[in-house]
């Protein structure tokens, strides 16, 4: 059995090819049934062919293995690819169970970390910056975000080789660091949300009830307590709303839309 082990050693060109395919093709085949299955196979198919040889039963077996369900963050997928290839290159078809274990075992946790960093935190921090500049007609914030995204692409490009070199121990090592980093980034995220509530929800009370002979300026009275109290209250209301059963963000958007049309139409609140 030992002579069935593959002889091929991955080269720098192989890594570049995988990275190119990962950046430009990984999620094109995304489908409801098995999600990123075909994308994963696509990124490493040329290397599988070199490791096992064309038209061998081993290659067919591994292609089928890689067509199974797979879904992770597309910012971290090449870490799993790197760990996978390090095993396949050394053990060939005998490493099949290990490879499946690595893929299934890691895809969930990398999906969670990747989503919280790249789908939540980065868009919050840079999106908030870009949006607050853009409301004043300034495109610089968008350009800053694009530059940051290019830097992230460099990071995505480098992690493949890194994971391939370090092997599985990398994951336990990295998890602590990543968790610490994510936690600190949420501090910045939470801080920025506070800042955004204070600047980006531009509504005020237009309602001025007559009490006896005195007209009460509701907005000014509130300003004396704390400026921007109305935006904070609206955000608090939607936050509470989202905690309700069966509530989705899309439903919440439409509820706010309707409430605003009613209250705005009646002249209770107005745009600043």
């Amino acid at each position, binding site marked *: 059995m030992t002579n069935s082990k593959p002889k091929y050693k991955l080269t720098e060109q192989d890594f570049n090819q995988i990275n190119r395919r990962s950046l430009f093709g990984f999620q*094109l*085949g995304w*489908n*409801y049934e098995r999600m990123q299955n*075909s*994308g994963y196979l*696509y990124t490493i*198919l040329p290397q599988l062919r070199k490791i096992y040889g064309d*038209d061998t039963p081993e290659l067919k077996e591994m*292609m089928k293995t890689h067509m199974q369900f797979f879904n992770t963050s*597309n910012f971290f997928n090449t870490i799993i690819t790197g760990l996978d290839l390090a095993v396949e290159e050394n053990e060939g078809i005998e490493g099949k169970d290990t490879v499946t274990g690595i893929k299934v075992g890691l895809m969930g946790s990398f999906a969670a970390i990747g*989503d919280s960093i790249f*789908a939540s935190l980065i*868009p919050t*921090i840079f*999106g*908030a*910056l870009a949006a607050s500049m*853009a*409301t004043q*007609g300034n495109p610089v914030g*968008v350009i800053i975000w*694009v530059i*940051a*995204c290019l830097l*992230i692409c460099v*990071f995505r490009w480098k992690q493949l080789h*890194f994971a391939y070199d370090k092997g599985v*121990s*990398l994951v*336990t090592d990295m998890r*602590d*660091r*990543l968790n*610490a980093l994510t*936690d*600190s980034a949420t*501090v910045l995220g*939470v*801080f920025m949300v*506070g*800042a955004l509530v204070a600047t980006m*929800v*531009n509504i005020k009370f237009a309602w001025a009830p007559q009490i006896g002979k005195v007209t009460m300026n509701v907005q000014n009275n509130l300003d004396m307590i704390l*400026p*921007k109290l109305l*935006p904070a209250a609206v955000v608090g*209301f*939607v936050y509470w709303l989202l905690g309700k059963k069966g509530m989705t*963000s*899309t439903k*919440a*958007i*439409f509820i*706010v*839309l309707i409430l*605003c049309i*009613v209250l705005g139409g009646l002249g209770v*609140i*107005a745009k600043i």
Partner: protein
Amino acid sequence: MAWWQILLLTLYAGLEILDELQIYSSLNTPVGAGLIAGLIMGDLPTGLFIGASMQLTVLGIGTFGGASRIDATTGTVLATAFSTSIKGMSPQTAISSIAVPVAAIMIELDVLARFANTYFSHRIDHLIDQDKINYKAVERNVLYGAIPWSLSRAVPVFIALAFGQGLVQQIANALNGDLLWLGNGLTVAGATLPAVGFAVLLRYLPVKRHAAYLILGFTITTLFSVLFSGMQALGTGLSAVNKGFTTIFNGLPMLAIAMLGLALAILHYKNIPINKGTAQAQSTESQSNSASSSSDDDEGEITDDEL
């Protein structure tokens, strides 16, 4: 709208989804869409304004995983195109009467694209089962997935831009005429919608643990924004009275606020104990090397934020 504007906007709609799936250059985001649609329509401020509002509305709504989400990018493209080309359609009204409904309808088309790709996945299964595998065909069937993705955005944008102008003009006329109260309400809604994005985001973030930072961010910014806008008003008033008064006061710079937040985040990071003990217990030299180089990468990440 000129035919080449419709063509470019359709092209952008078809490409932005591929960008979002792959490289994520951030030009696929609502604020990026506002920039590009604004440039194409020749009205950058309007595009940026609509893009920014939609960006804030969907701030917390983001998962790359399975779930389809409200497509604010396509909404921004159409709202910008109509707001700049239709008389009487203000940016705020365009946000709540065009961008939000379009973004919600687009969820269905996203689902359709994801379904269509199941077909290609099955074709690959079939190809692998052949005695002689056609490797090029396997790869082609992965890349064909780009077609449903692209069309799911490009087709509706093209149809709306090419055939929807008359309808949108009628809506705009009504909102400025008989339905003025509704127009006012929609304007308020456009200004309020970012609140939803913030609330969704707070649901995502560990708010209870980091409540102090939320309060700090809100209070510092509130105080400064009142101070800055008051000073701007004062400066404008003074320079009107006294010609010798030429000092210009700008608005509150958000980057400065973000820097305060970054400083707090760095302090927080430094205070988290990284568990080195377990790594060292099973450590060979190469592993401790990997620990130090991975920490380098992490610090690289923070400098990214600093930009």
